[in-house]
C-alpha cells in the first residue's frame, strides 16, 4: 500500500474535500491518501462523504494547527 500526501492547508477553493476527491481518482484501490487540512470542517465533511461513497476512513489526528486525515481507497 502506498500513501499519497495532499497538503490542503489554507485551501479555500477548491478546498480539502474537493482535493481529496480529485486525489482519489489518481490512486489505486487499497492505496491511501493522507490529507492535511487547516479547516476543522474537514473532520466532519470528509468522513460524511467517505461514508456515502464507501471508501475506508483511517486515522484522524490533530497536529499543530491542522488535521491529518487518512483515507483508504476501497472501490
Amino acid at each position, binding site marked *: 500500500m502506498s500513501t499519497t500526501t495532499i497538503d490542503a492547508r489554507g485551501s479555500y477553493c*477548491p478546498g480539502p474535500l474537493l482535493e481529496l476527491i480529485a486525489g482519489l*481518482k489518481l490512486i489505486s484501490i487499497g492505496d491511501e491518501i493522507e490529507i492535511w487540512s487547516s479547516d476543522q470542517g474537514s473532520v466532519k465533511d470528509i468522513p460524511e462523504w467517505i461514508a456515502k461513497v464507501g471508501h475506508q476512513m483511517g486515522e484522524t489526528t490533530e497536529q499543530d494547527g491542522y488535521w491529518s486525515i487518512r483515507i483508504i481507497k476501497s472501490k
Partner: protein
Amino acid sequence: MSKRILIVGGGLAGTITANGLCRQLGSALGKGEVSITMLGTTDQHMYQPGLLYIPFGTMREDELFRDQRKVLDRRVNFFVDPASNIDVENNRVETHAGMSFGYDYLVIATGSRIVPEEIPGMAEGAHWFYDLDGARKMRQALEDFDGGKIVVNVNAPHKCPVAPLEISFMLYHHLQKRGLADKTEITYTYPIGRLHALEPVAHWTSAEFDKYGIKSETFFNAKSVDPAAKTIESEEGSTLPYDLLVTIPPHRGAEVIEASDLGAGGWVPTDRHSLNREGSSNVFVVGDTTNIPISKAGSTAHYEADTLIDNLTSLVLEGRTARPYDGKVFCFVETGMDSATYVWFNYETPPNPGPPSKMIHWSKLAYNRLYWLSARGLL
C-alpha cells in the same frame, strides 16, 4: 554566457510570463545576455473564459482568438512545437518535431485539459462548454431545446470554479427570455456537501437558486452516463434523468507531464510560495499545471505569473528571488445575463462576495476585451 529561459506552454500563464520577462529584462535581451523561448501547441491564442458565452450566441467564435505571434512580444522565440519530454535532470526539453532545447531556467505552463472520456458515457451523452467544439455542440443543443429537465453536473477537479454557477444562471435567464423557463427544470449537482467550494459563495448561491427555482443535489460525483436512457448516475448512488445534460468534465494536466514522470494526473508538485517545482531550483510551474490547492483559473495564472516574472528577473540579474506568491485569486461571477459579482481571496484571507450589480457585470464584459492587454503583460 547568455542565460536561456525556456517556457513550455503558450496559454495565459506562459504568455504573461514571456511578455513580462521581456519588459523586465529588456536591456539584458538587447545585449544578448538572456534569451526567451516558448514552445506552444498552436499558433492561436484563445480567450478561454469567452467559451461561456458561445452556447448563448452572445460572443462570436472569432472574438475568442488572436494570433499568438501578435500577442507575444517580438523578442520571444516562439515555436509551434509541443514538448514531448521534459527532462529536469538534464535541463533539456524534447519536442514532437524532434527538436531539443536546453535551458538555464524552465517555466512549465502546460495547463489542463478536460477528460470526459474518463466517465463512461459522458462524452456521448453530455454537453460542455470548456472547449470550442463542445461549446458549439452545446449551442446547437440549446437551440434545439424546447423544455424539459436540464442537469448541470460538476466534476472534480475542474478549472474556473465559478463557471458552473455562471452557466446555471445564464441557462435560466436564456430560457426565460425564450419563454421556456416554466417548461424547464434545472438541477445543479456538486461533488461536495454544499453548492460551491467557497462557503460564502455556496450560501449566496443557495438563496439565488431558490429565487429562480433552480434545484440542486450535493455530494454528487458522476460515475456514469447512460445516453440511451438519458440518465446520470453518481458514485454516491443517486440517478438523475435529463433531457439536456451540461457537464463540467473532470480535468487532467497535459499528457507531457505524466509522460515525463513529473506529476500524477499531469499536476506538477510545486512549492506554493516560490512556485518552484519541488526538488528543482531552476524549474518553475505556473497556472493550472501546479498541484497547489487553489483555484485553477485565469486570475491565478495571472497573479502567479506576476510573481514569477519578478523572481526570474531577480534571479537572472541579481541571483536572488524577489517575493513569495501569496495565493491571490480573483474571479468575476456572472449571476445572470446582466448582473455579476466578484470574489477574491489568498492563502490568508477568506473570500467574501458582495451583492451582484450591473456595474460588476459591465466590468466583466470590459475585462473580456481587456484580457488581451493582460496577456500582453500590460494590465
